[in-house]
């Protein structure tokens, strides 16, 4: 159940509503502006601010 390009294009960062990008390892979605990583667990992206990982 890989993320489709179309879905990636319309998904937004839950915090800033800006663009997000798939990580190189395809295990998360990154918002560069907020420095947040939204993990993809068992193929399911977790689009919740509370569960995002803060990037240093």
């Amino acid at each position, binding site marked *: *159940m890989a*993320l*489709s390009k*179309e*879905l990636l294009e*319309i*998904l*937004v*960062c*839950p915090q800033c*509503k800006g663009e997000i990008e798939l990580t190189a390892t395809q295990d998360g979605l990154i918002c560069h502006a907020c420095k947040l990583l939204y993990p993809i*667990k*068992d*193929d*399911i*992206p*977790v*689009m*919740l601010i509370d569960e995002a990982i803060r990037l240093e």
Partner: protein
Amino acid sequence: MIFAQREGSLRQPHESKIYSEFSHLYDKIFSRFFCKRIATVIRSLSIPPGAKVLEVGVGTGLSLSAYPPHCEVTAIDLAPEMLEQARQKVIEHGWRHFRLLRMDALNLEFPDNSFDYVTSFHVISVVPDPVRMMREIHRVCRPGGKIVIINHFRTTKPVLGPLVDALDPLTRHLGWSASLRLSQAFAGVPLVIEKQFKTSPFSLFTVVLAHNRKEVTTDGVMH
């Protein structure tokens, strides 16, 4: 009281353990009540090839088999245990037209006008803020897009209504509110209700088919 309430306020329906600890039993308990009606309604939409569909609160994926494989369905839910059941169904059937996301129905993380159809079955009486959920659905649905809701709404009948209200604390404990009125949930959301019906005279549930009245003006601003 037959169960403990939180201090001073009613428990929120979505916090019920039915959506986490008992997710594996959910299909066994609810499929007979929900499945056929949901499938009939989805098939009646005749969703065209390539249409973009969002289902809000997909749960264990009871509805998934009814969507035609020629459309693209994005399905969201807040409960990871429920989504896992839905994921298993997608894998077992080898379906390629579904994308599952963990997301809050009150904060749909999509731009405006992203979907041709937005569906939601037996969810609106579960969320803490039904009006906000309807506003979010309206926002992400394109102008003229279809919105399809199936839910139990409080009857307007004089005797039965208050009786159902009295049961609300119990149903909240089990996982949903029984006192939500249709007019309450749709308040101020610019939708045209095309059809509002029950699939049988004794059904507890109402099917609402609406289209999004949102218009695009010449300045490109949505209203």
